């Protein structure tokens, strides 16, 4: 049975980095002077899934972020992919700690109209705390499943597929529910021109919510020191095959 669904996707504005990440002078953040911003691949899949669920069942696909006004850019990106409304919980800083983020989302969700399903990415692409969705679920007393790579909604229940060490699992939860999803859940679409123009005109609803500072405070970021031995070039083209075979033999991997 299909009934209209109200889905909300929580996304985070993160820098789109290159191979080398530059840090600010105080080393507390990534130097984003030359960088654009994006939402992580997990979250892109979450947006895609929300749009697909609503395309099938009807309802609404919302997108929410906690951040400064610049984060509207990411909300509009999600809108251009097909989300139909956007909420920004105002935060003065770009990267609040996970407790503050969870508190803000929890508080906003209590104010906003109810959603059947709230989707998170498994972890943000920058801080990677991997916990906001679970904190929100705990606070709102909602069932939650992480690592989700498949979502099916059937009437008032949702079936969530994930990979576990023991194998592929399907979890079933009553709605409303929370899920943290993984890239691979789907192949996200690119925004259309029409979608972008619609997104540009859309009004982002801005809500205020308390964000008590949590107990995890960044002191500094640094680069992982990479032990860097010189690469041994075994050769060029097919002529390198014997040398490769020698290495494989030496490693003892040849069966």
């Amino acid at each position, binding site marked *: 049975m299909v009934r209209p669904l109200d889905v909300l996707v929580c996304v985070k504005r993160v820098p789109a*980095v290159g*191979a080398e*990440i530059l*840090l600010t002078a105080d080393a507390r953040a*990534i130097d984003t002077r030359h960088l654009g911003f994006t939402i*992580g691949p997990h979250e892109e899949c979450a947006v895609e899934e929300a749009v697909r669920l609503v395309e099938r069942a009807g309802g609404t696909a919302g997108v929410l972020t906690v951040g400064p006004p610049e984060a509207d850019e990411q909300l509009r990106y999600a809108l251009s992919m097909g989300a139909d409304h956007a909420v920004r919980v105002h935060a003065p800083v770009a990267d609040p700690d996970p*407790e503050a983020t969870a508190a803000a989302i929890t508080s906003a969700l209590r104010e906003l109209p109810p959603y059947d399903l709230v989707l998170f990415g498994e972890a943000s*692409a920058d801080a*990677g*705390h*991997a*916990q906001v969705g*679970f*904190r929100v*679920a*705990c606070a709102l007393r909602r*069932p*939650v499943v*992480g690592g989700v*790579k498949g979502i099916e909604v059937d009437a008032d229940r949702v079936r969530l597929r994930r990979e*576990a*060490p023991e194998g*592929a*699992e*399907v979890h*079933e*939860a009553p709605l409303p529910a929370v899920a943290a999803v*993984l*890239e*691979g859940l789907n192949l996200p679409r690119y925004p259309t021109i029409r979608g972008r123009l619609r997104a540009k005109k859309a009004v982002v609803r801005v809500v205020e919510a308390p964000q008590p500072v*949590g*107990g*995890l*405070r*960044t*002191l*500094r*970021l*640094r680069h*992982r020191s990479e032990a860097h*031995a010189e*690469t*041994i*070039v*075994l*050769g060029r*083209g*097919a*002529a*390198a*095959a*014997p040398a*490769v*075979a020698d*290495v*494989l*033999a030496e490693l003892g*991997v*040849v*069966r």
Partner: protein
Amino acid sequence: MVLTVVERDGEGRLTAESAEVLAAARDLAEELGVPVAAVAVGETGDLPEDLAKQGVAQVHLLQHELLADGGPACTGEALAGLVADLRPTAVLAADSDRSTEAMAWAAARVGVPLATACTAIRPGSGDDEWEVTRERSGGILLEDAVLDAPIRFATLRPGAPSPSETAAADEVTVHVVVPELDAAVPRARLVDRQPRAAGMTLATAPVVVAGGRGVGSAEGYAVLEELAGLIGGAVGCSRVATNNGWRPHSDQVGLTGTRISPDLYVACGISGATQHWVGCMNARAILAINTDPEAPMVTRATWAVIGDVHEVLPAVVEELRRRSGR
């Protein structure tokens, strides 16, 4: 007390990741002059034996029918209840999906922060202020952070220094704890589980042969499969391959795919962008095959062959077959 959440594998034995966390917990507990206690879900099984080897003398076994699913809500509730009773100094767990999820729920329930993906945890000079080092941006960056809480929740990434030798515990005291789980605890029920097909998984394979843009097509992976078969490896791919539909996402190595640490990683036609590199950088050794001698994967590899995948791999396969007489 340093309370350590431990997990068991399909055979009921302590996982390697949990053993690593216990080692870290021992070091920490020694520095603090407090004991280490373990907490696990389920029946006693071989756990006391495994824990004894780790020098752990106390284990709390959470037992409740609602815990069978391994869902974060019930485990998290139970853990939070135990923490409320024991008031440990710190609660540590491996950085696995299951532990992290339960830790997140429990930390939320207790009302304390959780530091995930940590590579180090140190008591600070202040009362509550400890310091952690954790991975960010998929491990490209490290973050030094203050963990300011009366009870410090942290999950630890694998790959910490080899566990220090320790004296085995003479005896392991098992405390069975039946948490008070309200049936109304919101939870998802496990309704189906398809056991993993026999064979190697990408995450656990000792050798991974992965292909990227340079493989060129779905069909191009045949020679990778062949090599993997000869050297006992699994086949992986980069994000380009997934996006082009050449391989399923489950084969993807990288930040948003699988992060692996095989003994040997054979990177075929993979340039080594950050997104991919963080997925394979824990490999013990890397053999890169690439036309571009300046590609990041080549410059970071242990060994490299400069050339086209479809020239090099068939020759390697032929050479291996020749040597083995097959």
